[in-house]
């Protein structure tokens, strides 16, 4: 720099300053709240007042959404494919049920304990997904899911086996809010947990950690060359995802007062993947949009064609994949990106 004539140095300095201002602005814009985020949460509250007779399906959507958002953290961010995510969902469901049956009926306690126990399983099994390709990961996670289902089935003395777990009723939330017959409190409870969970994962998404996960997904070799400790990051992300999946399972137990062995069934792992395919990956809200669409379509199809609705779900999947993953994962991002650019210029 010192060899350069004075003028050049000055202009170089000022252009660096301009670049710094612009960079700060761009970085802040990354984590700006997008318009669809407001819409989602306003709609969630509005639904409570406008659709009092639809509380059960809305609750189902909120639970599936939390489950899907948690999977997005590993799939959409770290790029880890999983066909066994329901292992954590199911474990959380059973833990919440057993806790309510034998120890403490207060739901928030059950939610937290379920999250911790599922997180521990996530931590233990995360080491199995560090090696290998997508295919080996699919098989490993599928295997873990199937093993959990069989364990729950065999340990009938604890889990009720094929009959499931019942005979408990969750107490009032924090000792204050009693679950009602119409599921209104249950719905609000699930929406609040979904909101908090999404906000936590949103923070993670825009942190250096979240960015490093996307770097691992984008180019694992290069991410190592900028000193990203890939394995450690994947272990942490997988564990966090397991915590929230377990919480989603606990919500299902607490709002239905029943644990069916179905919580560990393979189709749940497949469903939640489908939810992310529909909603798009890598921006968290895909899990919420996908859960809404998936549940509504499934509900609608099972009414008009009770026997063959699975066929149409499959057909939908084929069409979605043919349209192209890239377009899918970006469809909603196009709008706010353009809007926010206009604001700036």
């Amino acid at each position, binding site marked *: 720099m010192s060899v350069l004539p004075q003028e050049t140095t000055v202009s170089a300095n000022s252009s*660096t300053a301009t670049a710094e201002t612009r960079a700060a602005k761009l970085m802040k814009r990354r984590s700006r709240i997008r318009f669809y985020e407001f819409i989602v949460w306003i709609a969630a509250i509005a639904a409570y007042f406008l659709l009092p007779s639809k509380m059960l399906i809305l609750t189902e959507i909120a639970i599936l959404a939390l489950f899907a958002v948690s999977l997005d953290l590993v799939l959409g961010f770290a790029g880890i494919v999983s066909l066994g995510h329901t292992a954590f969902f199911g474990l959380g469901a059973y833990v919440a049920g057993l806790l309510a049956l034998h120890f403490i009926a207060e739901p928030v306690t059950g939610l937290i304990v379920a999250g911790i126990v599922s997180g521990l399983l996530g931590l233990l099994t995360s080491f199995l997904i560090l090696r290998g390709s997508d295919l080996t990961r699919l098989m490993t996670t599928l295997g873990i899911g199937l093993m959990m289902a069989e364990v729950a089935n065999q340990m009938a003395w604890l889990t009720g086996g094929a009959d499931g777990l019942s005979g408990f009723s969750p107490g009032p939330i924090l000792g204050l809010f009693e679950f009602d017959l119409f599921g209104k409190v249950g719905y609000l409870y699930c929406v609040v947990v979904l909101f908090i969970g999404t906000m936590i994962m949103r923070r993670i998404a825009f*942190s250096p950690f979240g960015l*490093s996960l996307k*770097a691992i997904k984008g*180019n694992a070799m290069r991410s*190592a*060359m*900028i*000193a990203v400790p890939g394995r450690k990051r994947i272990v942490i992300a997988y564990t966090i995802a397991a915590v929230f999946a377990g919480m989603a399972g606990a919500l299902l137990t607490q709002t239905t007062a029943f644990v069916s062995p179905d919580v560990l069934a393979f189709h749940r792992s497949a469903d939640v993947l489908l939810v992310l395919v529909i909603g798009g990956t890598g921006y968290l809200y895909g899990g919420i949009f996908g859960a809404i669409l998936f549940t509504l379509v499934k509900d609608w199809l099972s009414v008009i064609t009770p026997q063959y609705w699975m066929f149409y779900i499959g057909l939908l999947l084929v069409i979605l994949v043919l349209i192209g993953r890239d377009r899918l994962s970006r469809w909603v991002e196009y709008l706010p990106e353009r809007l926010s650019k206009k604001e700036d210029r």
Partner: protein
Amino acid sequence: MSEIVLETRHLVRRFGAFLATNDVSLKVERGARHALIGPNGAGKTTLINLLTGVLPPSEGQVFLEGEDITSMASFRRVKRGLTRTFQINQLFNEFTPLETVALAIAEREGVGHNLWRSIAGYGKVVDEAAALLARFGLASVMGERTVILPYGKQRLLEIALAFASRPRVLLLDEPAAGVPEDERHEVLQIVSDLPADVTVLLIEHDMDLVFSFANRISVLVAGAVFVEGTVAEISADPRVKAVYLGENA
């Protein structure tokens, strides 16, 4: 200036029956501008891959500042100051150049594991990223997705990204490949401007660039070090000319 920062001892790498690296013992001094040349397929990139841990060697050892790093993970080597660029761009397609460089700086500063604070909150990291991008002429495209950038810009980002880790030993695998003619010298100038104690190992085919940049040259042929010496020695060596002419004829 005689301290050895990077050393290999009897390094061997086989791909099946093919010997890509054949008993390479190399010593690079601190602050050296060391060029690695040789005909296509001589094993130059394989050697870089062995040095950076992208590939494990079949035999032999690698030392960084006297420490055996043969079985050390790549990201740890980067933390110890050994960084590289790739011959074929290895970038994060969906990232912007700003995100790319900021992440590398965040990892260097040891804040990459923070999962609670927004990266925008690290003002120093963002400022440094912006300054680095400005230095490489990438300030105007810092907010674009990398995948849509023209090749020349991606190439500059590839090198800027290695700079972001502030290496003490930098391995450049054909950095000027694909960079427009008029920008080549700029790129090499930025590399030349690195502090004198930063060691650079350069792979390059453009002999003009090599001779103007390097102070020491190793010629690799068929995976082995064919000859090593100063620029004057190598440029005068008839055997080197023969290797190149023979290979190109």
